[in-house]
């Protein structure tokens, strides 16, 4: 047997091995995609119930007797706030179900409606005082979160009692129950009741935090990049700074949280839970990203440009700020946007500095207590109520939408300026 024959004998096996190897590669690429699709599909399917809300039609009695007001005097603010609105809601429910008389059943009946319903009515009455004394007003009020989940998903849970199922059937038969778009999800802040909870507070908190991050990390990052790329002498100190930056980029984010807790809060006494501290911690975290990408952008500016400016008599500083930096700006901004996207999705360091508190108010500035979108996701995912799962998934979708937007902007910027060049 000569060599050719020996090689030929093994050839079939070797080709099979080649095919198998390629297949493994394809499977590896595919598995990444499959996981991505499953993840997105799972979250979207969990999220969709949160975008609609179940409402129940009630006729709220507004005659003077029910409101407990006297007919003679104009209702002033004090009298309005003294009205038993919860009682009005209960009375309205009883009117829909006149056959229910037992105490136990009534309790179940009242639990059909969200505890926030009385505030809706209160607000409505405050805005339209001329309603008082007229015919009963028809109002769609929100259902309780358990009823909401049951009605939207049509799954039987132990939290909805058999009696309540009958009530819902009756409401359905009378056309008194419907679902509509959950606008409150975007306009209200956190609440203990899922049907009243929204992400406005977290959105505004994220905005303030990112604003601080941007204002701190972008100027400092660009300045550091310019210095390291253009002015720094080649010596040990510069090397040390570079190694430091590379290492910082790989330090776990939670360690930055410890830094924030020990330095900003304990030492400098800055307020806990405030976007100011969150923004500072996140800017320290995103700084390496911005420095590294800005340096790459500055490096990619053609040296001929620089030489021309220097040759015409511009100083080094003038060359950098008038010619190099403007050319590098698209790359710098792309890096900054990517850094901001990272900061927007970051959770762990913010837990350390107390942004996990339950906060109902929309933060009005960088010193107020606030929470941010990813922390809101973390908080809600911990809540036992089933309806919070949907809210969590919906918040994730909102967060992902923002991230997609930011990354798309970064890609657009890069492509636009590359074409222009």
């Amino acid at each position: 047997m000569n060599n050719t024959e020996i090689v030929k004998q093994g050839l079939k096996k070797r080709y099979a091995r080649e095919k198998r190897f390629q297949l493994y590669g394809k499977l590896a690429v595919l598995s990444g995609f499959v996981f991505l699709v499953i993840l997105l599909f799972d979250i979207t399917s969990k999220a969709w119930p949160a975008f609609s809300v179940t409402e129940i039609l009630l006729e709220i009695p507004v005659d003077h007797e029910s409101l407990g007001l006297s007919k003679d005097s104009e209702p002033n603010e004090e009298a309005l706030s003294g009205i038993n609105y919860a009682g009005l809601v209960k009375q309205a429910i009883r009117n829909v179900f006149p056959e229910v008389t037992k105490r136990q059943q009534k309790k179940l009946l009242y639990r059909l409606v969200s505890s926030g319903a009385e505030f809706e009515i209160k607000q409505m009455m405050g805005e339209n005082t001329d309603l008082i004394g007229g015919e009963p007003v028809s109002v769609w009020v929100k259902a309780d979160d358990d009823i909401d989940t049951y009605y939207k998903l049509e799954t039987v849970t132990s939290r909805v009692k058999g009696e309540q199922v009958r009530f819902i059937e009756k409401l359905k038969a009378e056309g008194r129950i419907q679902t509509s778009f959950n606008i409150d999800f975007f306009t209200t802040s956190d609440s203990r009741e899922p049907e009243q909870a929204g992400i406005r507070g977290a959105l505004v908190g994220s905005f303030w935090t990112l604003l601080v991050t941007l204002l701190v990390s972008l100027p400092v990052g660009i300045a550091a990049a310019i210095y390291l790329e253009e002015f720094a002498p080649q010596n040990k100190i510069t090397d040390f700074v570079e190694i430091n930056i590379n290492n910082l980029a790989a330090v776990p984010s939670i360690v930055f949280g410890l830094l924030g807790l020990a330095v900003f809060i304990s030492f400098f006494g800055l307020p806990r839970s405030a976007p100011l501290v969150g923004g500072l911690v996140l800017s320290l975290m995103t700084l390496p990203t911005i420095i590294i990408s800005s340096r790459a952008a500055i490096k990619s500016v053609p040296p001929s440009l620089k030489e021309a400016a220097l040759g015409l008599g511009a100083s080094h500083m003038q060359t950098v700020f008038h010619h190099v930096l403007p050319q590098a700006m698209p790359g710098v901004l792309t890096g900054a946007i990517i850094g901001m996207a990272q900061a927007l999705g970051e959770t762990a360091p913010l837990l350390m500095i107390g942004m996990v508190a339950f906060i109902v108010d929309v933060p009005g500035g960088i010193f107020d207590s606030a929470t941010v979108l990813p922390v809101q996701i973390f908080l809600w995912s911990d809540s036992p109520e089933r309806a919070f799962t949907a809210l969590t998934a919906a918040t994730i979708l909102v967060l992902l939408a923002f991230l997609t937007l930011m990354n798309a902007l970064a890609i657009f910027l890069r492509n636009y300026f590359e074409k222009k060049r």
Partner: protein
Amino acid sequence: MSVSSLFLIVLGLGFIAFVVGQQRAAGYEGDTRLKSLPHHYGFLTAIWSSIPALILLLAWLSFEPVYLQKQIEQSLPVEALNQSEEVLELYMNNIHLAIQNNQAGDDEVVNNAVLHYQRSELHSRSLITALVFVLGLSGIIAGLSRLLFRLHARVSIEKVIKAFLMLCSGVAIVTTVGIVFSVLFEAIRFFEAVSVFDFIFGSSWSPQTSIRVDQVGSSGSFGAVPLFLGTMLISAIALIIAVPVGLMTAIYLSEYASARFRASAKPALEILAGIPTVVYGFFAALTVAPFIREVGESVGLSVASESALAAGIVMGVMIIPFVSSLSDDVISAVPQAMRDGSLGLGATRSETIKQVVIPAALPGIVGGVLLAASRAIGETMIVVMAAGLAANLTVNPLEAVTTVTVQIVTLLTGDQEFDSPKTLAAFALGLMLFISTLVLNVIALHIVRKYREHYE
């Protein structure tokens, strides 16, 4: 005067200084030509006026709270100061609350302290306002003097700018130093209470120190071995998923795939890296963990609902793009001549990859894997949401384990005093985390750098 109006004053004075300097330079009639443009002289005067004032203002801002606190303490009678620490702290809280709400209470001492505080604050504010004005105006006066035109204004400005740029690049060092010191000091305080040996080699972790001394288990035990083991278990599962998949992805994309497929597949896979970790945590806790539990139960295994496997798998998926992009870089750095040589000798493509490309790229790949390991160790949200809270000394991936990062989060979230061993333990864990990731990073970056030099 409020802090923001002080800043506005500095800005206003700086603007006036700019106008003064520029106007003077524009109207300059000397024997020699001016060395710089008029607006350079404007900027220089503005710098003279505002930089010293700004530095002073910032220094004052960071030390005023300390000064005021001292003033309050001085105003208190001796009896109040001699109380036990907790009572004193409560007292201080009352005083601060009274200051915030600006209302008189019925405690004479508190009212006195509030009055004293307000007086000291007024003094300190008037002093700083006066000083800011003096510094700002003296800058302007310097701009009006003859000194101005002796200077090369542009060069002076550029020196200031360069100093600023240098300062900014120093922020990285300051951050590192800040991390080391903040973590180290608290950790040292922790090790005064708990010995280092017990911490690193102890096998029982229950940090719940009780509030009363006489309660059972009041001391708490701080043996971190279960945490280290749990962290390693979850990271190992993650790497077992991420390394083969990531590496094969990189090989396929760089050696087999067409340019078009590669151009669209790579960014698509990088979406996985851009998804926030809290989203992975949600997915791991609510979808993967129950799924694994069901599968396990259907074959008769008992699986914890917060199994290490679920957290590990999801974490593995998260670092796939990380491994694949690092490996991709090193694989593409292998010279084409080596591939051509192997193919020319009759090897198939897979043989070339396995026997030539991978061995050549191995150091770089190892560096990438180490970086991925460091990322897995430091990953927080996935394990906080999907792994257990109780320490458990086991290597069974179907049981619940806890990790270093989970314990840091649970020890530090919620309200508690800053000095208890419980909170200090978090910093000791943070120190361990920082050291181990730092060592991994340094080794990995060193290997990758050496490897690059090898082929460049």
